[in-house]
């Protein structure tokens, strides 16, 4: 029999016992709905976390550090845990301006910038507050941390401006008995430890060598207290995590990258160079560089290229590999729980179709007498199971979508009452809709196997005798 005829007959047959078949279909719909609702929550949560990380500009960034021969106990185990592969054995290279230029020339690289992080003393009048200060590239303005900030982002890459974190702003404003918001537009002074390169002749042997102390001569530079006036232009809310991957930290104040670069602040790697006493004479190195690439998929290639250049790399993709594994397991578990309801519903299909065989025994005999083959009868029952499966699947997807919407609505309302911005924790991608429908159809067909085979095997003579 042709598929269109099978479907027509299946619909006709199902309409005959409308209530029973509707209830069976509803059972499948509930099963599919629980599956869709569970998975849409799992997917939604995963998407929410991915989205947040992506908006933080962390997925499309690679952190480049100079490779050192530092012994880091447990590093191998940590790498394994993070799903990171071991870096290739390449001689370490200097992370300096030349390396920065080379990295910027790699395919798909948008920008390469260093991160400066130092302790500064933000002074308002005669008093000050110590805090961590971090540099920010102009591209960070798209970071969701600046959504709803007080004031604005830096007016230009070289602007002598500063953005404060709320707690820091409150502490600083307290000095003059102000509200944090009143700091916007005020000038503050930022004190920091500056690095002053000593002239070559002062490093021993030269005519001016006697000007440098023995300690300074050993360092190659002197550390001086420096300061810069900055205008407060913005205040961001609490708990903001900026930074390059791997050095996630919280800072109380942020200055434009070009400004931070011009300050010649003493960095942690300066000390490492001094202790290592290896490349000191060759000039300043960066503590790290952040490479922003066009898209997350280009990150692995950039990482590999940087490793081949002799640097150590890290990206959040490494971290999310293990996170995705966790979500995959979570989705699987949610899927299994959701499928249980569908499995129970499939028993309803078996029951309905077995009942149909008993009720339509004579009809099956008539069909066979008129020329229906065993295959025709089997296909007819499969078609009925499929119709129930597809109808149940479609209804279930709609119900699951509705349940998800309700959970989303209730969660959003709850979060808002708690003073937390609402998040979208629910998502029904097209593949979930298609997958749920296909799964529902497959379960229905499996459930229809026994009744279909039993109907096909009916002896027509016996069936025609049945009253």
């Amino acid at each position, binding site marked *: 029999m042709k598929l269109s005829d099978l479907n027509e007959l299946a619909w006709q047959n199902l309409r005959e016992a409308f209530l029973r078949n509707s209830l069976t279909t509803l059972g499948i719909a509930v099963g599919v709905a629980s599956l869709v609702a569970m998975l849409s929550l799992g997917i939604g949560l995963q998407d929410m976390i991915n989205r947040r990380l992506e908006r933080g500009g962390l997925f499309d960034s690679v952190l480049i550090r100079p490779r050192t021969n530092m012994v880091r106990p447990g590093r191998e185990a940590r790498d394994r845990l993070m799903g990171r592969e071991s870096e290739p054995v390449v001689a370490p290279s200097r992370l300096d301006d030349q390396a920065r230029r080379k990295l910027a020339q790699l395919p798909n690289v948008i920008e390469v910038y260093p991160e400066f992080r130092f302790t500064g003393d933000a002074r308002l009048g005669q008093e000050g507050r110590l805090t961590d200060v971090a540099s920010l590239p102009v591209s960070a303005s798209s970071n969701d941390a600046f959504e709803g900030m007080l004031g604005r982002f830096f007016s230009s890459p070289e602007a002598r401006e500063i953005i404060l974190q709320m707690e820091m702003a409150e502490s600083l404003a307290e000095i003059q008995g102000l509200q944090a918001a009143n700091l916007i537009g005020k000038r503050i002074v930022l004190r920091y430890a500056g690095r002053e390169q000593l002239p070559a002749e002062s490093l021993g042997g030269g005519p001016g060598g006697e000007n440098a102390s023995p300690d300074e001569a050993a360092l190659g530079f002197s550390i001086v207290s420096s300061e810069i006036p900055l205008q407060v232009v913005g205040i961001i809310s609490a708990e903001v995590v900026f930074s390059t991957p791997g050095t996630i930290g919280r800072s109380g104040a942020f200055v434009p990258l070009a400004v931070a670069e011009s300050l010649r602040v003493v960095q942690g790697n300066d000390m490492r160079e001094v202790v290592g006493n290896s490349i000191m004479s060759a000039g300043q190195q960066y503590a790290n560089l952040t490479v922003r690439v066009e898209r997350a998929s280009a990150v692995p290639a950039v990482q590999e290229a940087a490793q081949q250049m002799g640097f150590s790399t890290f990206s959040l993709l490494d971290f999310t590999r293990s996170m995705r594994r966790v979500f995959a397991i979570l989705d699987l578990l949610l899927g299994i729980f959701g499928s249980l309801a569908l499995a129970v519903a499939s028993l309803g299909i078996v029951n309905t179709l077995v009942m149909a065989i008993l009720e339509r025994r004579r009809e099956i005999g008539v069909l066979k007498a008129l020329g*229906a083959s065993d295959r025709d009868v089997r296909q007819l029952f499969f078609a009925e199971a499929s119709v129930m499966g597809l109808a149940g699947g479609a209804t279930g997807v709609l119900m699951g979508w509705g349940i998800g919407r309700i959970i989303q609505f209730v969660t959003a309302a709850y979060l808002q009452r708690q003073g937390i911005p609402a998040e979208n924790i629910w998502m029904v991608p097209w593949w979930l809709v298609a997958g749920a429908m296909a799964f529902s159809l497959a379960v229905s067909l499996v459930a229809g196997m026994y009744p279909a085979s039993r109907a096909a095997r009916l002896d027509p003579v016996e069936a025609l005798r049945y009253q």
Partner: protein
Amino acid sequence: MQSNGLAIRTDQLVRHYKMGEALIRAVDGVSLEIGAGEFVALLGSSGSGKSTLLNLLAGLDHPSAGTVEVLGKSLGAMNPLELSRHRNQTIGMVFQSFNLLPRMTVFENVELPLRLAETPRSERPPRVQEAIERVGLAARLKHRPGELSGGEQQRVAIARALVNRPRVLLADEPTGNLDSHTGEEILRLIAGINRPADGTAPTTVVMVTHERPLAEQFANRIITLADGRVAHEERL
């Protein structure tokens, strides 16, 4: 194709059933030849094996021994799919209790063998119309069986049996559920199918009945069965 003008030929046809310990000899060595275009009535008391023989000729039942040939083809040599085609294309069956599907309209009931034959959709309405006109029910196409009288239902069943233009019509007590007047009308219809007035090819009819007067009136041969064997045979 038929062999030597024969539509049906059976040779020592046997169908035994086991019911518990007892062996039921429903058909017990029946050999007969039915020519193309004949109208044969199978008579006999209840349990004489008439319906079993008819089921064997239709290929609905399988013989315990012996052979059945329809239009020169041995049913024993056919696989299940070929047997289905045989029932669909070569044979038309009419039952005592009509066996129409109650949820389908007259049109849909008659169309059913065409669906099974995978006849193109566009060809079906004229074929159904032709069959239904032959039984005189053209005005009732959209009615359901429950809205028809017994005689009308049997006419629909005959139209359904004819829609694939079979060469052999097997009727199992077609008048059994009808009053005598309607029964006679139905047999007149079957006789018309057996020998069409318009000169088109005759259809071989084998009819099971226990109404001898009607058989004598319409059939041209009566075969009487008793205890699964041919007890008597007479040409009219």
